[in-house]
């Protein structure tokens, strides 16, 4: 069994997302596709899965060219995909999700749900998944949801299995288990394509590594290659994996959080009685797997959450119970984790986005009127200062690349008089150049004496920026540890294990 991509090219308008990419994967091997965010990995896999049609090139399975007009054709050809964003219907049960599109029916098209249940159990047992066929998918933890995705693909007898960034939502332990599943699949003769940007994982399971950058194959590497070699190949130049920073000059305890509990409108508690403090001139980095209360924590700090108990004091002033605008006026800068949803108004110009949280008065508004001249002057200044690559200040923010969008958000927040900076996933989906720039800005903010709270699910980023690290698990603080805590310990803490007094 051998799957081959030959000179696959995919364009979106003038952008070439995939430029003559060739790739071969055989049964019984794990082929890693390594590349930065936006390098074109997912586009390539969507071509392979029939979601996009290639402009040029062909896909060949065992010498037969495939005509893929949709996922149905890919499935029929034995190609299965575990998507980065799970393709599961949250309100359906596991069995319903697994049978969808592949239904066994009885009289008059009625569903044979028992057959689906049996199939889920069979595959679940084979791999030791422990998945209940009647559980509603939306209620399951993400790790289990991913197994449902795998069961779904396996139930269609896939010969080629593509994993698209599967570890983004997993704990280190769940990641290890996934690696084990991949090895199991390899042993059973399945061809596995593993797409990721995480070097460590690649080196752990890959039989072969193909690195792509800006839509092109830039090289093949051996699993024995070092991190630095792989990173250089991926980014195209030697990469500084650490951030240059001096020891912090610590000031007063500026942000003091006590017994903070945050629930959503259904009463589910996402942040469960946590306490911590951040000193002036210090970066406290919050580590943890996505979905362990980080989002709710940062939103509660800003006053965006409704059901909040406990206390958040900034320079002695209580913030709980205040409106978002009052919190902003108190000097809190906020970089939201999803800039497209919470950070920017896509159709607004860069200039308008720069005044988004200052539409109530000076310096941009006088007597209810927007001071257009002043705003434009400010916008031009910031465009330059933050090196935002854009045609001009009137360009809609939605037209910018991820890195430039994030720079606009950072520029807006840092140009206010800050007494606290909260940055959630500050470099998610951002190119390497912008990552370095944004990291420098965060450290500069710290060095100016502002307390900084950084939330990141990327352990590398946490370690690079932190003066201290707080690990969250299921809405609780597992521990607050120094920045030089070993990765293995941090990984363990992210699964909720307290390192028994080992770290101080």
């Amino acid at each position, binding site marked *: 069994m051998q799957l081959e991509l030959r000179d696959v090219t995919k364009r979106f308008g003038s952008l070439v997302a995939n430029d003559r990419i060739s790739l071969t994967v055989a049964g019984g091997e794990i082929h890693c596709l390594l590349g930065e965010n936006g390098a074109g990995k997912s586009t390539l896999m969507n071509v392979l899965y029939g*979601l996009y049609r290639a402009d040029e090139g062909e896909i060949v399975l065992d010498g037969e060219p495939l005509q893929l007009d949709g996922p149905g054709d890919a499935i029929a050809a034995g190609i299965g995909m575990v998507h980065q964003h799970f393709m599961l219907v*949250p309100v359906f049960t596991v069995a319903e999700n697994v049978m969808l599109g*592949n239904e066994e029916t009885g009289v008059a098209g009625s*569903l044979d749900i028992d057959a689906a249940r049996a199939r889920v159990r069979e595959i679940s047992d084979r791999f030791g998944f422990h998945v209940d066929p009647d559980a509603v998918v939306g209620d399951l933890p993400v790790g289990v949801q991913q197994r449902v995705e795998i069961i*779904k693909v396996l139930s269609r007898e896939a010969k080629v299995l593509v994993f698209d960034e599967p570890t983004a939502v997993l704990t280190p332990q769940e990641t290890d288990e996934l690696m084990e599943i991949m090895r199991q699949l390899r042993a059973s003769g399945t061809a596995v394509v593993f797409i990721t940007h995480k070097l460590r994982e690649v080196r752990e399971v890959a039989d072969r590594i193909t690195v792509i950058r800006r839509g092109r194959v830039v090289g093949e590497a051996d699993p024995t290659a070092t991190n630095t070699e792989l990173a250089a190949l991926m980014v195209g130049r030697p990469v500084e994996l650490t951030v240059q920073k001096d020891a912090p000059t610590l000031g007063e305890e500026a942000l003091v959080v006590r017994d903070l509990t945050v629930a959503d409108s259904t009463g589910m508690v996402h942040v469960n009685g946590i306490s911590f403090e951040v000193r002036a001139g210090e970066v406290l980095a919050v580590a943890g797997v996505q979905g362990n209360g980080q989002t709710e924590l940062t939103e509660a700090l800003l006053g965006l959450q409704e059901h909040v108990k406990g206390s958040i004091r900034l320079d002695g002033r209580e913030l709980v119970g205040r409106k978002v605008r009052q919190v902003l006026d108190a000097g809190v800068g906020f970089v939201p984790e999803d800039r497209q949803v919470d950070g920017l108004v896509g159709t607004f110009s860069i200039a308008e986005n720069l005044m988004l949280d200052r539409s109530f008065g000076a310096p941009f508004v006088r007597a209810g009127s927007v001071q257009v001249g002043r705003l434009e002057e400010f916008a031009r200044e910031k465009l330059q200062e933050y090196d935002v690559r854009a045609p001009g200040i009137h360009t809609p923010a939605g037209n910018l690349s991820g890195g430039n969008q994030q720079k606009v958000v950072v520029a807006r927040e840092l140009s206010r008089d800050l007494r606290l900076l909260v940055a959630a996933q500050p470099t998610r989906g951002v190119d390497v150049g912008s990552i370095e720039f944004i990291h420098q800005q965060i450290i500069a903010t710290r060095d100016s004496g502002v307390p900084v709270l950084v939330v990141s699910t990327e352990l590398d980023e946490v370690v690079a920026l932190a003066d201290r690290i707080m690990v969250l698990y*299921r809405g609780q603080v597992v521990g607050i540890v120094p920045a030089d805590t070993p990765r293995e310990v941090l990984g363990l803490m992210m699964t909720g294990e307290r390192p028994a007094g080992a770290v101080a």
Partner: protein
Amino acid sequence: MTTSAPTTGPAPVTDTPPVIAVVSKKAPVILAVVTVALAAAVALGSQSGDTSFRLATRNDFVEIPDITVPAVGTAWVAVVLMALCAAESVRRYLAHRDTPLWLVAVFSVIGMIGFLGWAAAGATLPVVGLLAGALALAVPLVFGALGGVLGERVGVVNIAIDGQLLAGAFAAALVGSVAGSAWVGVLGAAAAGALVALILGVFAISYFVDQVIVGVVLNVLIVGLTSFMFSQVLAPNAADLNSPPRLGPVTIPVLGDIPVIGPILFRQSALVYLLYVAVAVVTWALYRTKWGLRVRAVGEHPKAADTVGIDVVRTRYRTVLIAGAIAGAGGAFYTLVSVSQFNREMTGGAGYIALAAVIFGKWDPIRATLAALLFGFASNLQGVLSVIGSPVPSEFMLMLPYVVTVFAVAGLVGQSRAPAASGVPYRKG
């Protein structure tokens, strides 16, 4: 200060996050407001005498005697019971628990009996006629709501229900007259509804036009088209083109003779029997068949459906066309059952009420049907009360379904969840 000692962390990390009760105070507030409103009406209105509830009809097998109660006394008893229900709701709110649906249902039934007993003082209320009439009036609403539910379940908001009803009414009159058969008229109505749905589909599914905009504009378009065609074609040739045969009431043997239930459910027009079938088939198909599973998947997560090889666009078109046909068939009520001729704008915005029933019924065919029946009941109640004379101005009775809907969307279904992808066009990639 616990800056660096994880072992001194507050509580051990637990694996199951707790759930704290977050309850809405809407239900207790609304129940209390309604109770006070009825109490005020009874206290301020000058009603007296007895009220009779007539449960029997002519040619019944078994004669059931009228139930006669003192009007004001009944109303006060009802107010007290309602106050108890409201108090229970408040108690549950204070105990951080939600008001259960059964409590609201009990409250509503008591409230309705109390109100009827009070409003119809000194007269006899034909209960069977009231309910049978309610069912008849609800026919287009139920068909429309079924069409709306199907559309939203597959991810297409169908604001054009009113247009589909109106087009159905028009086509039923025209086709029925030309063919000389009411049943052919119903088929014509379904076809017309599907045609409107096809336009909705082309714009909403293929051209990604905002679905609410298409729906609203389509309704205006159908009003214009049918009114234009009515003036130009139907009215001048009324005898040939606008006098369809009627679908009269048909009594189903045996079932129709059951006291109370028989006359309400089984002495109706054939369209009502079609309605029973439609509700049953739609419900079964949506929840128990491969087709229904795919419809719901496309409405919840079209991309997931696409990735398992389901053609999202084709599924949406097919379902929207079926939904349009069902709503269109409901339009036949106006020209084949209610009166036997078409008139301009004769649906009177019933499609919007059907839309409200869809939301009221939480996108479920059975519940939407019940909601539509409730609206039918309210309209018929107004008619019955204005005949026997009521202390409430008829304008306020006419307002009732709309006010109830506002209360409903503001209070009772505020937190309910629509199909996730409803209203969102599906673009590949």
